[in-house]
């Protein structure tokens, strides 16, 4: 594998408690991340199996910045390959999704089967004995790079790496169990929305992992007692640090004064819903967990907030821009009433979500705030310097976990983080 020179970014310890702002602004960082993270030994979330319902169903997406076609072939197997013609590099598939028997590049009509093999070169033998490819040209030696595919609970992941562990080993047992908890039966897509974030992709991933901010920035949550730090819950960080689960359980008995004592902005007794049906959900998990946010390194999120289910795909678009793809889900066997509850609760999330709209903006606040501070560092020390699981949610352990995994992939010598 081709290696670029390690970037001269200086990490200060202990652990991963100081994050160099340069990582969000240095123009050399994205290319290294593409090579070492997104095309490195990771599993990139590509799509749902439910989005490839039959032979020939395909979707175009990205692994990091690399355009990818994901397709179900005639045997029902899923393949993914770079969306790049082997000839001149043009996109092979232009639509977001569709059904195909084969693919053909529009530029010079080179064609591919559903496995991504180059099967046809227009005028390969020339025209009337003139031109054509040399006899030595071998189609088998040309083709877009293929990704390895792994599926888990209906999630389709792809990897350019031969070294990445099997998906279940990559995720680890705790993360697997928490994915299975939500995706335990077939799902259906009920809507797709994209949010353009004015910030580096890592700021959004950190935000997802940051259980500390949830009840401080998102007043809606706090006011309706969906998410207090004193609620039962916790944070699970896998061994690599890269994946996490943050969860909480509502405990109506635990009405506490933590916030009032600290005179924080995020409490407001006056605020009550006129139409409380927004929050009138139904119990569908027997473990009492009403909120579970799960992330898989580098850029996948599975969300259960009450009955509102979604997956999110985080795609870097340059140093200071990110595409966040939301796919809202229901279960295939939802009753109409259950489906209505999910649609109502979807007001909580997405680009206009009562408890998520701020996340679309705070990354931009950081991106704008750190202009001129590339030599300085963020402080990520809530809960100490460890990057492991913890009971409380007043911790940034899973954010440090992200950096532990990031540094491992980027070849930036890791700190003392556990």
């Amino acid at each position, binding site marked *: 594998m081709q290696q670029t020179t390690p970037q001269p970014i200086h990490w200060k310890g202990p652990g991963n408690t100081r994050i160099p702002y340069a990582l969000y602004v240095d123009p050399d960082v994205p290319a290294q991340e593409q090579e070492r993270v997104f095309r490195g030994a990771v599993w990139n979330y590509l799509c749902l199996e439910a989005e490839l319902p039959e032979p020939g169903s395909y979707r175009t997406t990205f692994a990091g910045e690399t355009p990818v076609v994901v397709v179900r072939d005639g045997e029902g197997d899923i393949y993914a390959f770079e969306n790049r013609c082997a000839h001149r590099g043009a996109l092979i598939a232009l639509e977001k999704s569709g059904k195909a028997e084969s693919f053909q590049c529009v530029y010079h009509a080179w064609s591919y089967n559903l496995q991504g093999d180059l099967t046809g070169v227009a005028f390969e033998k020339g025209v009337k004995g003139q031109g054509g490819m040399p006899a030595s040209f071998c189609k088998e030696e040309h083709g877009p790079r293929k990704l390895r595919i792994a599926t888990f609970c209906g999630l389709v992941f792809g990897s350019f790496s031969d070294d990445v562990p099997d998906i279940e080993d990559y995720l680890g047992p705790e993360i697997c169990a928490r994915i299975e908890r939500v995706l335990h039966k077939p799902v259906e897509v009920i809507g*797709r929305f994209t*949010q353009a974030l004015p910030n580096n992709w890592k700021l959004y991933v950190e935000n997802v992992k940051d259980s500390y901010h949830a009840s401080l920035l998102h*007043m809606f949550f706090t006011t309706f007692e969906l998410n207090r730090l004193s609620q039962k819950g916790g944070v699970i960080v896998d061994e690599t640090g890269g994946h996490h689960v943050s969860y909480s359980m509502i405990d109506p008995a635990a009405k506490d004064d933590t916030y009032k004592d600290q005179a924080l902005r995020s409490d407001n007794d006056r*605020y009550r819903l006129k139409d409380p049906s927004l929050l009138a959900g139904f119990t569908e998990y027997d473990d009492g967990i009403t909120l579970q946010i799960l992330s898989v390194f580098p850029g996948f999120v599975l969300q259960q907030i009450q009955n509102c289910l979604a997956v999110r795909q985080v795609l870097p678009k340059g140093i200071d821009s990110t595409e966040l793809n939301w796919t809202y889900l229901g279960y295939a066997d939802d009753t109409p009433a259950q489906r209505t509850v999910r649609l109502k609760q979807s*007001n909580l999330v997405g680009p206009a979500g009562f408890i998520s709209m701020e996340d679309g*903006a705070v990354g931009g606040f950081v991106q704008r705030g750190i202009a001129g501070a590339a030599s300085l560092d963020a402080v990520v020390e809530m809960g100490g310097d460890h990057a492991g699981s913890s009971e409380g949610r007043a911790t940034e352990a899973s954010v440090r976990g992200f950096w532990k995994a990031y540094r491992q992939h980027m070849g930036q010598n890791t700190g003392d983080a556990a």
Partner: protein
Amino acid sequence: MSTEIDLLQVAAFNAAYARTIDNDALEQWPAFFAPDCHYRITNVENEREGLPAGIVWADSRDMLEDRIAALREANIYERQRYRHLLGMPVLEAAEGGQAKATTPFMVARIMHTGETAVFATGEYRDRFVRQDGRLLLAERVAVCDSTVTDTLLALPL
């Protein structure tokens, strides 16, 4: 006077609707809807595929009032305004005091920093009713032409 809903009434209704949002009179915005109504913001791809979710999804006027209350009291977003430019409605059906219409919209977002950008374009797909002599929306689906929302959507479309 005829009780049928005509083009001019819909156009005037839309003008008042847009002005209410653009002038930051958001508390008056829910009053453009019937108590039992549907309001949704989605995009052309979801509509084409029949996917029912919205980035805003409400089935009562109370939910719209709750959204404004949340914007005023709970949600954090940078100071911003919209400027709606609405096209001429196409009145698709009008009888019995009800009407179906579609109206194209273009919304610029003006941030407090001065940054002005086209934030959304699309089409309102509406069902109007007349209740107590007033024209009201029984349904407004704001179908955005783009699937992408920049940063966040705070104010309604």
